[in-house]
Structure formats: structure tokens, C-alpha cells
């Protein structure tokens, strides 16, 4: 039995036993190489799940939909390691209760082979190299290194051009599991810290605020990158911030669910380089 069939029947079993009220997975997409999220509430619907190397989206973002988990019932969800990391982050930020999430874990190896990940509760995944590995794909690192090698002026020009494209659609925010605030700071207009129009200043304000808000919290799933309709390489920003946090605090977001939010908490051996 292939992994797709195996997970279809596992999902169906979860639903028919009543253990979960919903399983979030993938269904066929609009084209042959695209998958779209599928929300199965019955065992029959679970038969439509697709699981292959095209299932790259991070479905954890649906877990924080307003009201979904407030009845205390469980939800099943198909997750890759990055999705598992985001669930860890969401748990550590009190947005999810670990017991409410049943994970159907999988990993995509070499860009084509889909292999199952053992376990179903988030605690089953808290250790293990696959989950821990925070290295984004090589092309992301290469692109990031290219930008790091630039002079400050070149870098500024690069991002100015990229951010100039932003149309403030907030798709990046919408797709990101970490952007769960009910009211985002950009929507605050008393006072209006971040201007809404998509001119240079407003775009910089928005993209930098988002970068800071994700520092030490990004699961490196790349969803923002894929969602952006004008192809701004957003994950490079977040990758860089993650690297900073890692070198300063030896902290990788989402390694386990007991982590304390790195920028909000204080440890006695935190570096104090900012104190002159």
C-alpha cells in the first residue's frame, strides 16, 4: 500500500471513530502539479485525499482559523517537518493545545519521494533530525548568501526594488501560520504607525515590521514566498532574521513546544552586546 492509500485510510479511521472532527489534507488542484487544501469531515471525503511530492503547502495555518478549536475537539492535519515546527511554535505561543492536534506526518525526500513520519501527537515529533533540520532548500541559502555578500548600498537597492513591487495584498500574512493576530498592527489606524498605501515608505514599513514580527518565530515553510503574487523573495528576509536569532541566542524556532518565545523571554546567559 502506498503512502497515499495508507494515510487516506488512517484519516478515514480517525473520522469514523469520531476521534477527530475534521482532517485537513490535500486534494487535487486546478492543474496537474498543484494541490489544494481539502477539509474532510466524513470518511468518504477522506478518500479524496492526495499525498504526493506536490503537497508542499503548510496546512498548519488553518489550525488557527478563528473558532476552529474552541469546542475542544480534535483536528487531524497533514504536516511536513516545517508544518510540525509551526505547530510547535503555535503551541509555545498558546495558540494551540497539543492534545487537539492529530498529525499525519510526512516528508518529501529528494523533491520526489514521500515518506511517512512516525507518530501522531506533537510530542512524538519533538526530537529527531528531520524535524529539527531547519535548513531551507539549497537555493534559498544560496540566494541569501548572495544578498549577504552585497555591500549595504547594493543590498538596500535590492530590497528597495523588491519591496517596490509589493501591492499590500497581505497574502503573505494571510498564509503564514504565525500571523494569527486577530488585528494586525498594519490595521491599526489610531495612530497609523504603518501607512496603508503601497508607496516606498509604506512598503518598507510593512515588510520590515513583518520581518521583525517573525524574527525567531518563522518555521521556514516558504508559504509567504509562494503566496506573494509579485514574487518578492520573502523567505530570504525571514531566513536572515532566523539566522541572527540563532547566532545570538542559539535558538531555532519550532524545535519543540516547550520553547519560550525567544525575544520575549530572558535567560541569564543571554548576550548583552546591546548594553554599552
Amino acid at each position, binding site marked *: 500500500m502506498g503512502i497515499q492509500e495508507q494515510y487516506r485510510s488512517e484519516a478515514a479511521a480517525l473520522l469514523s471513530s469520531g476521534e477527530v472532527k475534521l482532517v485537513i489534507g490535500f486534494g487535487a488542484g486546478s492543474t496537474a502539479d498543484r494541490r489544494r487544501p481539502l477539509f474532510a469531515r466524513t470518511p468518504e471525503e477522506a478518500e479524496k485525499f492526495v499525498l504526493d511530492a506536490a503537497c508542499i503547502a503548510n496546512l498548519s495555518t488553518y489550525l488557527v482559523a478563528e473558532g476552529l478549536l474552541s469546542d475542544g475537539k480534535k483536528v487531524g492535519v497533514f504536516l511536513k517537518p516545517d508544518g510540525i515546527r509551526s505547530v510547535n511554535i503555535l503551541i509555545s*505561543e*498558546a495558540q494551540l493545545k497539543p492534545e487537539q492536534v492529530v498529525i499525519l506526518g510526512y516528508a518529501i525526500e529528494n523533491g520526489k519521494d514521500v515518506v511517512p513520519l512516525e507518530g501522531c501527537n506533537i510530542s512524538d515529533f519533538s526530537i529527531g533530525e528531520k524535524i529539527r533540520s531547519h535548513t531551507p532548500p539549497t537555493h534559498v541559502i544560496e540566494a541569501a548568501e548572495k544578498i549577504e555578500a552585497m555591500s549595504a548600498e547594493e543590498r538596500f537597492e535590492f530590497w528597495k526594488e523588491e519591496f517596490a513591487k509589493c501591492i499590500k495584498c497581505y497574502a503573505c500574512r494571510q498564509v503564514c501560520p504565525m500571523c494569527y*493576530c486577530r*488585528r494586525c*498592527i498594519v490595521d491599526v489606524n*489610531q495612530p497609523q504607525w504603518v501607512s496603508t498605501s503601497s508607496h516606498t515608505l509604506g512598503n518598507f514599513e510593512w515588510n520590515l515590521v513583518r520581518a521583525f514580527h517573525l524574527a525567531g518565530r518563522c518555521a521556514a515553510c516558504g508559504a509567504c514566498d509562494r503566496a506573494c503574487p509579485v514574487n518578492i523573495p520573502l523567505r530570504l528576509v525571514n531566513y536572515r532574521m532566523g539566522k541572527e536569532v540563532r547566532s545570538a541566542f542559539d535558538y531555532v524556532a519550532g524545535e519543540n513546544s516547550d520553547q519560550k*518565545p525567544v525575544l520575549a*523571554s530572558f535567560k*541569564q546567559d543571554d548576550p548583552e552586546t546591546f548594553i554599552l
Partner: protein
Amino acid sequence: MAKIGVFVCHCGENIASKVDTGNLVKALSDHPGVEICNEYKYFCSDPGQETVKRAIRENNLTGVVVAACSPRMHETTFRKACAEAGLNPYMLELANIREQCSWVHSDKDQATEKAIEITRSLVEKVKRNNELKPISVPVTRRALVIGGGIAGIQAALDIAGAGREVILVEREPSIGGHMSQLSETFPTLDCSQCILTPRMVEAIQHPNIKVLTYSEVEEVDGYIGNFKVKVRKKARYVDIDKCTGCGDCIQKCPVKKIPSEFECGLGNRTAIYTPFAQAVPNKPVIDKNRCTYFKNGKCKICQKTCQIENCIDFEMQDTYEEYEVGAIVVATGFQIQDTSVYGEYGYGKYKDVITGLSFERLASASGPTAGKILRPSDGKEPETVVFIQCAGSRDPSKGVKYCSKICCMYTAKHAMLYAHKHHGSNSKIFYMDIRAAGKGYDEFTRRAIEEDEAEYLRGRVSKVFEENGKLIVRGVDTLLGKPVEVAADMVVLATAIVPQPDAKEFAKRIGIGYDEYGFYNEAHLKLRPVETATAGIYLCGACQSPKDIPDSVAQASAAAAKVLGLFSREQLEREPVVAAVGESTCAGCWGCVYACPYNAIEQKEIRDRNGNLIKEVASVNPGLCQGCGTCVTFCRSNSIDLAGFTEKQIFAEVMAL
């Protein structure tokens, strides 16, 4: 409609020499919402304040900006003036055009321009100020004193003597600190134990003092007037309430050869022991790491010897107690530097190279040699003793940069004690300077030289080595400009006074500042020497800097006076500058809960009418909030605002620039 009064102060020439105040007044008079704008030589003077008050009354001002010095200087002055004129004191802002402008600029035009901008931005802020009322909080009139050395004991006695309760926490099995180890004390040569023990006994018997020995402060929460502290009482394995202090157990303990910490290793103790004969409380403790029972499960001889049932209890565990206190006095004292960094002095290599503290034990009547100065190596009386001062102090390369302050004095004392106890004594003291400032101090060192024939050699020692059973001390006499070699029988090092090894970690735990070495920082070296920057926490004794007993005691009484001043009120008025959470937008991420340095944010449940949980949000306890603003900057959804510094105010201030 806003009616703002702007008052531009010259501060004599301090401001007016660099800022064209006439232009400033002109610019501000035209600013929207400014009703009246004046300048004056000294607004902080009585007539100056009267002008402000009159302007408030006559123009029905809704807000006041005084363009003058830092709010740290005169905010209180002008708030009071506003209040007296019937305006809410929080409708005042100080535009700092002195420290932040005239004092730091030389170009008058540019400085004037900047002063205009600063003042304008404060006008925009004050337009959005809200009337605030001070928060009053009750004061818990009980003090915690940490450290039971002479400083802590003195502070505790003074506070208790004024009728307030004190919790005195000491981590060792007995109170007394270093003073209990001293033989006789400069500058009067009275016996240390004789003057200390009455204080120790008074402390433990005082009805207002609760002495917790062998205990550590684990956590400090809260703020001035309202601290919550958690104390860990370490398992002593002896119930001090039951124990009569008879000492039978100590007699019978088979492990007898443990080098005594109190005797600096010059004497031995047992595994169940009291650190010294006059210990308070005089109740033993079991050293778990040395006890045969704890090591291999067999022995319990002490328990069998003890006449009292269940007094010795091998199952005893650490226990925790919580106390509410209104003030904290930190008196955790010092340590002496580990002299082994000076390999060339042979400490640790030669038995007869000892520290000054060890010498105290040799000279002490209750010490291992019953007060005879005998060499540790062979128990013989030394004929020649060399004292090396500054063995660590004033030595940036190996030791510490600072002067340890007491070593000149105790070295002179040691030479005297040696002379008094041993006729024909021959003491030679290598020194850099003799620093003997203090009442009776210079006379004391002179006496050592003139009456007790201590020979002072000005210069450093380069090496101590053994030759033919003598310790050869090689150094220079810089006054003669010649190298010298002294053949000594014993060498005494005046080691540097350093902070407790855990001083920095402990400071972080209780929330006070420290210097590069780990000595605790006072709020102001000259004007607030016993307060820390954390309101309600005070300092005394050698934890702040090296100190002798007179200074430690004086500072302890000063700290007690501060505590009693605080305790003279039932309520404290607090600034109403506190944070509040917008519950509708809070996402309940608890980031602010972690971030708040004062643990002022709690989790709160929001329920509907039927009691169903809708969500959980953050909620600031205004009694605990110190208004630091950390949470405001942390909150991603921008759900927290700080009274007196609201986002609207700050935004308007920034946009006015």
C-alpha cells in the same frame, strides 16, 4: 479646545546663552493650541512658579509645557505648581532644552531650531495627555535582610528595634559572617567575638527578628512595599527546634578529619558540626557530602547518640517558605581572592605561606592554636614573619584594579598581634602605600611601627621560595632602590577583597545592578549610597565595596533608616504610568507575560454570559506594573498602551518633529 501654556526658562545662562529664547517664544506663540507663551530667567524659582500658576488660573489652561531642564530635575516641582493651580499634574510636560539641547550644542541658530522642535513636539503630546491619578499601594511593613554578617545583623537589629518585623536570611549554618573569624579588630584591638556575639545573640532572641540560617533567597517578586520572596531552607538534618545544642553527636561522629572552612583549613571538624563554638544558632548541621551514612548508607551514630527523639533526621528535605516584605536589605558581604593566581608567592605550595584570614584564626584565642602564632607546617613559633600587602589588590594584571581598603589596617594589626604574642618578634611588611585614613587609623599604623617595631619595606615581592627550611622572600625596597631578600619562617598575604563568587548571579535573581567585579551598585555613589536603583532594595556592608567593620555598621544603620522611612507610611503613592491591555485585540500569545520584567501581567479568561470561555487575554496588574513599557514594544498586535505615554501621544510627538 486645547489651551496650552508654554513657559520658556533661561536657566540663568544655561539655556539662554545657546538658545535664542525670544525666537523660541515667538515660534511657539504661533503654534496651534498655544494660549500663552512666556519666558523667564528661572521658572523653578518661587516667582517663576507663581507665573505658571497665575497663567493656569487666568487662562483656564488645559495643559502646560515648561521648556527647561530634564524632567528628572523639576518634573515634581512643576507638577506641584499645576496641582496648586487646579490643573491635573499629569497635564504637564517638561521640554528638555537644557541637557538635550543647550548643553550639548554650540551653534546658537541650530540649537534654537532644535529647541523649537523639542518644545513643539511636547505641545503636541500634552494636547493628548489624559488626567491621571496616582495609584496608592499598601506597604508591607516587614523587612527582609539577606546576609547575616555584621552588616546584616546591625540592619536587622535597627529595624527590629524600631518595632518592625525582620526576616534575616543567612546561607551558612550560623550568622556572624567574616567578623566571627577575626581575632582582634583594628583600630582598638578589641576581641572580635566579644563584640560580635552579643549582637548575634540579640538578633536571634529578638522578638521581631526571624533568623533563617542555612537558607537561601530563591526568588524575589513584586516591587517596593510589596515584595514576595521565596526562601529555601536547606535540609540541615537536625531539627533546630528540638536540638538542645548539647554537642554529643559531634563528639561521637567518626568522620573527624574534615578541614574546617571556618578555621581556613587550619583545624578540623566532623561531618556533623557547628562551624564554631559561639555559633548562633548553636545547633549542628550534617555535611551531606562527608557523612558516612549519606555516602554508604551505614553509620547514623549521631542519631543513636542523640538523646532527643527524631531530632536528627536523615530524611529531611529542603523546604520552601514564602514571605511578604516591603523592603529588602542586601548584606551578602565578600570573599577573599583565591591567592593561587600568584604562583610566585608559593601559596598552596608552601604550608607556611598563608592568607591574612588564616592569620586571624592563628591569632584567635578560640582558633586551632588557641591564639598562639604557630607555623602550620611544624607548629613552631616563627621568628620572622613577612607580610605582603596588596597581594591581589591594585594589580590590574593578575588581581583586581581597586584598593581593598582594609588590608593596610589588618596587616598592621597582624604585626602588632604577633609582637604582643611573641617577644622578639620580627615582622617585615612589604607595602605599596600605607593607606590609613579613618578615625584612629593612622595612629594605629604608627603604633605598629613605633611601639611594635614592624619594619615597613616599600616595594613589591617578586618571588617566595624555600631554601634550607626558610622561606626566602625576594623583592625590592624602592625607597633604597635596592633588591632585598628576607629569610622568613612564615609569609602572610593580604589577599584582595572580592565579591561573593555568586554575586552577579544573585544580583540578577533579585534584580539589582552590579559593577564589573560583582560589587553591588548604589543608586548614586555620593547622594544615595545605600539605595539600589531598584526601589525598595537597599545595600550595606562589603557587598557594595570592600569595607571595614565601622563602615559596614554605619552603612547598615543608614540602610535601616531608609527602610524605616519607607515603613513610616501605610500607603505609598505610585506613578499612574501603567500599562493596560486592549482585550478585544489581544491574541493571547503571552509574549508580554514573559517579557514583563516585573511579572505584572497575568492571564485572564473572558467568558460569555453563560460562563463559556470565549478567549484568554493578557491583563496588567496596575499594582505591579512599573510602567517600563517593555510589553508595549513587544506586543505584535499593538494591544497594549501605557498611560501617560500612549501611542497617540508618542505618535503626535514624533510627527511634530
